[in-house]
């Protein structure tokens, strides 16, 4: 097990290095290069030369790349052109919001998707099955940002059941410990603050959950159908094991294996959806920040965030692989 962890950690290094090269090339390929990106279109030649010298852009490419890499390793990614704050600070401030949103979305997707897929497979061809299959096909095809917009228009603006933007009602004086507002409220005993934060989470989390929910439902259904046809399920049934035991121990446990992998994959993919959802609800996480960074052409923020997100994605997948080897003994043998 330890050897597996170490080997996988070592495999991360070339991937992340390669990513840094890609990002470095990208930064240098931006229209007019980094200097123009910083100065805007109306810069004079002299301004440009001055900035380029200050940034070391007149030096050979490999020296520049070395410096870029060194700053990356020191988590120094420059200063956001929108806010004037260091990119790393902005990232750590926004990250908990996105994690909170992503985790909520994943909980919804798993809590609804797994049972739905399971019962759809058990009653194949029933109205439940048909609804689950067509619903999940539709779920993939609705643009996330449009769904977010619809939810907001109906449940926040028209019906007024949920707040329409932000993570917290302004004026609520909540203590901040971890940056996860719901958790903070529970930890400090400020239950009204926790409730307020939870209400703010509902609509964005629902919108964000749509695609993972659709995929998890379909995968669970397919997986359960496959396991139900296996010989060992028939054997278990014919030797007189109770229904609960066969379903719980033989069917569900084996059927959930591929779902674990899918959950890991989807967690990484959630970030794309979060950019869209958060900007609709002005949620104040990484997604909202990236949206404004795109609008404002804030390249230090874009580069930094992309690097961190890719690193987070790679680490999440590593964790999923390890979890998988814990659940499925066959993987460990290899």
């Amino acid at each position, binding site marked *: 097990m330890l050897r597996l962890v170490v080997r996988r950690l070592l495999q991360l290094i*070339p*991937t992340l290095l*390669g*990513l840094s090269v*890609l990002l470095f090339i*990208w930064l240098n*390929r*931006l*229209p007019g290069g980094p200097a123009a990106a910083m100065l805007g279109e109306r810069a004079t030649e002299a301004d440009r030369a001055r900035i380029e010298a200050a940034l070391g852009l007149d030096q050979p490419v490999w020296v520049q790349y070395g410096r870029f890499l060194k700053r990356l390793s020191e988590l120094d990614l420059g200063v956001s052109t929108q806010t004037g704050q260091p990119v790393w600070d902005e990232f750590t401030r926004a990250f908990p919001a996105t994690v909170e949103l992503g985790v909520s979305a994943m909980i919804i997707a798993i809590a609804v998707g797994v049972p739905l897929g399971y019962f759809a497979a058990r009653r194949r061809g029933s109205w439940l099955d048909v609804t689950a299959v067509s619903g999940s*096909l*539709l779920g*993939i*095809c*609705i*643009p*996330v*940002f*449009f769904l977010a*917009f619809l939810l907001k*228009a109906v449940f926040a*603006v028209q019906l007024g059941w949920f707040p329409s933007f932000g993570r917290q009602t302004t004026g609520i004086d909540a203590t901040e410990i971890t940056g996860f507002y719901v958790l903070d409220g529970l930890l400090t005993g400020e239950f009204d603050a926790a409730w307020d934060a939870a209400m703010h989470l509902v609509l964005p989390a629902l919108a964000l959950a749509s695609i993972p929910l659709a995929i998890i439902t379909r995968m669970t259904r397919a997986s359960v159908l496959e396991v139900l046809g296996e010989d060992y399920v028939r054997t278990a049934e014919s030797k007189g094991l109770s229904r609960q035991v066969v379903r719980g121990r033989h069917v569900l446990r084996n059927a959930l294996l591929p779902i674990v*992998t*899918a959950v*890991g*994959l989807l967690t*990484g*993919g959630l*970030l*794309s959806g979060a*950019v*869209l959802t958060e*900007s609709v609800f002005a949620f104040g996480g990484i997604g909202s920040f*990236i*949206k404004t960074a*795109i*609008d404002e*052409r804030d*390249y230090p923020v*874009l580069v930094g*965030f*992309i690097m961190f*997100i*890719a690193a987070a*994605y*790679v680490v999440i*997948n*590593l964790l*999923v*692989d390890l979890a*998988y080897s814990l659940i499925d003994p066959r993987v460990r043998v290899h």
Partner: protein
Amino acid sequence: MSTKTDKIDRLAELTASTETSTGASLWVEAWRRLKSSKMAVIGACIIGVFVVVAIVGPWVAPYSPTAQLWRGEVLTNQNVFVGPRAENWLGLDHLARDEFSRMLVGARQTLLVGIVATLLGFTVGALVGGASGAALVLGGKVGRRIDTVVMRVIDMMLALPSLLLAVSIAAVLGQSLTTVMIAVGVVQIPIFARLLRGAMLAQGGSDYVLAAQALGVRKRRIALGHVLPNSLSPVIVQTTLSLATAIIEAAALSYLGLGNPDSAVPEWGVMLAQAQRYFDSAPMLAVYPALGIIITALGFTLLGEAMREALDPKLRS
């Protein structure tokens, strides 16, 4: 990272194995099952209608998509919009242009985005994946080394969230519809590459390859004449599915402000992104293009899923 790749590899393996016991060829069998699949028929019908609209749309549109009609009636700043009426079936948009005509003309652009992006992903991805797979099948130390290097790069691309990859590309190329097509297409490259390579790898160990080797068929001929054609079915499935994703992702990029800033050329994604600004006073302006996108994406997804089922040897009767 490797979980994602494993999933794609497994998909490739599943759809690529060709055990023909009935004697009918994989394609004949798949076609028979596709015809009897309700999903496939509905999907094909939707796609058919969409393609027809995309072709004839610009000719049958009652108005020019850029003509500003009855300008005084639409006052965006006062939230006054013109709804559906006899001469404008879907009303007028925020610049007093006929929404129905714009939907008709926009279908062609939307189809174009899907096709160009998918073609780009397919061509480059299949070339890279095919070369990598061929190198692996041809064997030898060099082949394996080439495969390792290529796949590392592909895995790196897979490690970036697709939308961010697209955003990075769009930032370099500037705002235009071409940018969106390229950005969405590049995102598809690693998926196609991984898929084709995985399928070729699965074929590499099969009996007919061994037989061909035993007969002394040249390695290049085995790779290109035997392994490659038999590995294409997962790629074809992915092409269909990718048309749906491309259209949706293009809409997302437009929403993020990276699409075509020139709204004179209507495209459903751009129309949807623009209409959301006036959602409170004219929600239907967003609903029309959204419905167009959803139904079209659904058509491609239905057909793709049906094809996947038809080609899955496990489900063959």
